C-alpha cells in the first residue's frame, strides 16, 4: 500500500522578475487505491506541488513522506525509478525512440536486460490498450492519445505504484480524454495505484475519488 504524507510544505522560486511563492504550507495525505484530483486556476501552484511530490524540486520547508521516508533525505532519483512515475501534458516521450523503446527505457535503467525489457515493455503497452502497430512508431507518428498511453505504459513499466499526472489530458480531445481518465481510474481501483492528477478540468475532478483545490499556493 502506498502512502504520501505532506506536512506544512512550502516552496518558492525566482523567475526573471520576482520571487514566486508557489506552494504555501500545504498539508495532505494520499493513499493507494484512490484517484486524487488537484484542481485550481493557472498559477495556483498545482504543477509545482506535483513536482515537489515527484522529488524534482525540494521543499523549502515542511516534510513530504513517501511510504514513511522523508523525500528530502532519500535518493530522489531512485525514488523516481522505483516508486514514483510522472506523466505530463506534453507527454514528454523521447522523440528519437519508438513507443516500445520509450517504455523500455526505465526498465533498462534498472539494469534489466534488453531482451527482458522488450518483453515487459510490450506487456505494459498491451495493458494500456495500444495496438501492435504502434510499438514501432515514433512519437511524431502517433496521436496525442496514443502518446499519452505510451507515457502511462512507461510509468507502469517502472514498477512504482505511485503515478502523478500533470494535466494528462490537456492536449487531448474529449474522446481520448475519456479513455485516459478511464485508464487512470482502472490503475487506481483495479491495480492499487496511488494516482494524483493535476487538472483544471472539472469533469476529471468529478470522476476522482478525492478532489482537492489549490488557490494561490494553498490547498483546500
Amino acid at each position, binding site marked *: 500500500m502506498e502512502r504520501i504524507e505532506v506536512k506544512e510544505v512550502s516552496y518558492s522560486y525566482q523567475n526573471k522578475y520576482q520571487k514566486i511563492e508557489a506552494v504555501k504550507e500545504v498539508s495532505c495525505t494520499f493513499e493507494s487505491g484512490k484517484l486524487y484530483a488537484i484542481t485550481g486556476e493557472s498559477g495556483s501552484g498545482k504543477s509545482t506541488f506535483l*513536482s515537489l511530490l515527484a522529488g524534482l524540486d525540494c521543499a523549502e520547508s515542511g516534510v513530504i513522506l513517501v511510504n514513511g521516508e522523508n523525500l528530502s533525505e532519500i535518493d530522489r*532519483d531512485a525514488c523516481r525509478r522505483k516508486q514514483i512515475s510522472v506523466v505530463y501534458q506534453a507527454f514528454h516521450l523521447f*522523440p528519437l525512440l519508438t513507443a516500445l523503446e520509450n517504455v523500455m527505457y526505465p526498465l*533498462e535503467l534498472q539494469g534489466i536486460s534488453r531482451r*527482458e525489457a522488450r518483453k515487459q515493455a*510490450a506487456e505494459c503497452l*498491451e495493458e494500456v490498450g495500444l495496438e501492435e502497430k504502434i510499438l514501432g512508431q515514433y512519437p511524431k507518428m502517433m496521436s496525442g492519445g496514443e502518446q499519452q498511453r505510451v507515457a502511462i505504459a512507461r510509468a507502469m513499466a517502472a514498477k512504482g505504484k505511485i503515478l502523478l499526472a500533470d494535466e494528462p489530458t490537456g492536449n487531448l480531445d474529449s474522446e481520448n480524454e475519456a479513455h485516459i481518465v478511464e485508464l487512470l481510474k482502472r490503475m487506481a481501483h483495479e491495480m492499487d495505484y496511488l494516482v494524483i492528477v493535476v487538472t483544471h478540468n472539472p469533469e476529471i475532478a468529478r470522476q476522482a475519488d478525492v478532489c482537492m483545490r489549490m488557490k494561490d499556493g494553498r490547498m483546500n
Partner: protein
Amino acid sequence: MNTKQVEEATGITRQNIRYYERQNLLEPARDTGNAYRDYSEEDVRRLKLIKMLRMLDMPLKEIRQVLNGNIPLKKAIAKQQENLLLQQKQLQAALEMCTSIQKDKSETIDVDIYLEWMENMAKGGSIFAKIVDDYKQVAEEERRRQFSFYTELPVHTAGTFEKVLRDYAKEQGRKFHMVKPGMYPEFLLDGVPYTAARTFEKDGGTEETRTRIICSRAEDANGRERARGHRRILLQSVYAIGVNIKRHRFKSILNAAISMLTVIVLAFYLGGLSGTRQQFAELPEAIPVRATVMNAIGTLRNGLLVRQQVLDTVYGSPYIGEIEETAELLGHIRTEGSKEEIPGPEKETGEDARAGDGAESNPQSPEIQILGVNCPEITEDYTEEEIRWADGWNWERFLEGGKVCIAGNTFLGQQGLDIGDEAAFTLEHYQPLPFGPGLERSSLMPEEMEIVGSMSITEDSAAQAPQIVVPVERVKQIYKENVKVYFASSLAFTVTDPMELNALKQDLIKAGLSSVVPEMTDSYIGSACRIEDDVFMQAAVGLEKNIALLEAFLPFIILVVLLAGYLVPHLLLQGRRGEYAIMRALGTGKKRCTVLFFTEHMLLAMAGGAVGAGLSAAFGTAGIPTAAAVWGLFLLCHTLGAAAAMWLFGKMSVAAVLSCRD
C-alpha cells in the same frame, strides 16, 4: 493470434493465461519486432487442455507432466480419478462426521470425543490426515514463493530494514545473507534469492499503522536474467551512447567536424610556429656565416702574416668551425747531384719583396709556389678533379703531416717526376722587416718530399695556383726546425653559432683582429676580420619577428580553443534539454546523465580531433609528434570547456523544463 483472440477462443481470462505462462505451462512465441505474444493453434489447444484438466481439479504439477509428455493423458486422468475418489471418501467421512455432530443432542459438544473418534478413523484409513498434509504442501509452496511478517520496529532506513530481516531469519532458523541493502533490499534465505518491500497497514482492531514486510522470491525462471550488475549497466551505458550518437546524427557530425577543423587550424598554427623555430635553429647551417682574416684595409686575404695569437684564438673558439689555414713558401727544385750550397737570398724589402725572383739562388730553376693547407677544400679552388693519390694515401693521411706533397701535373711534367718520386727543394719564406711595414725573404733549410699525389690545375687558376701543396703542419714544423716565427698566409673560418657573434668579436678583438677600415695604413699583417653575416642577419631578424608574432598569438589561440570547447557543447546541448529533463524525471541520476552526455560529446570531439590531427600529419602541415601534441592540447582545452558547459547545463530546473515553465 493475440491475447484477446485467445481469450475469446478459449474462454480463459488473460490473467489466467499469464499465470499459466509464469508456471511454464505455456510459452508463446514473441513477435520479433514488438515482442507481443503470438499464440499458435498449438498454444490454443494446450490452453484448452489445461482448462479441462484444471476443471477436473488436477494439480498444475500433474498437468505439466502431461503437457511435457512425461505421463500419458489417460494415465493422468486415471490417477486423478483415484484422487477424486479418495477426496470423495474424505468428503463423505467429513459429511458423516458433520451429520453425527448435528445429531448430538448435548448442549455442549465434547470436542475431545469427536477428535478421538476422528483420529481413530484417521489411523484406520488416513481419512483426515491427508487433508492436513495437503494444506501444509500448498501453504509451504506459497510460503516459499512469498511470505510476509509484521514488525514492531519503524522501518525507515536501510539499516533498520536489514536488522528486521536478520531477526526474522534468525527466528525462523534460516540462513540469511544480504546481497543488496537499501529500501528494496535483495537477500538470500537459505541460498534462495528474495526481494523485500514495506507496506503500512492499519491494524483492524486498534486502527494503528503497522509495518508489514513482504518478501518475494526473486524471478529466476528459465530464460530470464537477474537485473543487476555494474557490468550490465556499464555495457548498457556504452550502448546508449552509441545509439544516441547515431540518433542525433546531424549534431554528431557537426560536433566531429568542428573538432576536426579546430585541430587542423591549431595544427597549422602550431606547425607553422614549430617550423619557423626549426628554420631559425637550422639557419646557421642553411646560411653559413663565413669570416676571413684580411689586412687592415681589406685588400688582401692571401699572402698575409697572420700571427699565432690570432690562430690560437680562432682554433680555441667554441663558436668557430671549418677553419681554412694556409701557409705560403717559395722554393726551387734541387736537381740531383747539385750539392753546391745555394747562396742565401738577398734580403729584399718593401713591396717588391714578393716580386722577387728566387731564381737567383738557382738561376736555372723557376720559382715554385708551395702552399701549406689544412683541409682539402682549399685545393678545390684550383682543381675540379679529385686528387690522384699514391697507393694507401688519402687526405686524412696527408694532413697528418710529414715530408710529403701533392704536385701539379704541369710541375710533374716539367720536372719529369711522377707520384712516388722524391723531390728536393730549397725553401724560402717571407717575414716582416724588423723595422717598417715591408717584408723580406729569408731562406729555410732544404727539404726533400715524397710526391704522394697529383692535381690537375684548371686553366683559370693556373696563374695563382701553387705547384706544390704540403700539409700546413709540415710547414709549421719547418718553421720550428728553422727557429723561425710562424705566420699563416691566410685564415678563413665559419661561425658555427652566429647568435654568439658579439662574444666572438670580443675574442677576436682581444686577439688583435679588428674590423676592416679602408682608411688604415696598408700592410701585410692579418689584423682585420671581415665577417659576412649580412644575409644571415637579415634572415634571422625576419624569422625572429615571425616567431615573436606567432608566439604573441598563442594565448589567443588557446583561448579560442577553450571557448570553442565551451560553446560547441553548450549550443549542441541546448537542443537536448528536454531529453535531459525526461531522463532525470524517469529517475536517471544527475551524475549518470552528465556522464552520458559528456562522454558522448567528448567521444565525438576525440574522433574528430584525431581525424584532424591525422590529416595535418598526412598533408605535412605538422609532423606526427606535433600533430599528436596538438590533438592532446585540443582535448585538454575542449574537456575543460565542455565540463564548464555540462556544469551549467546540469543546473537547469528539470521541473521547469518539463512544465514548460523554463
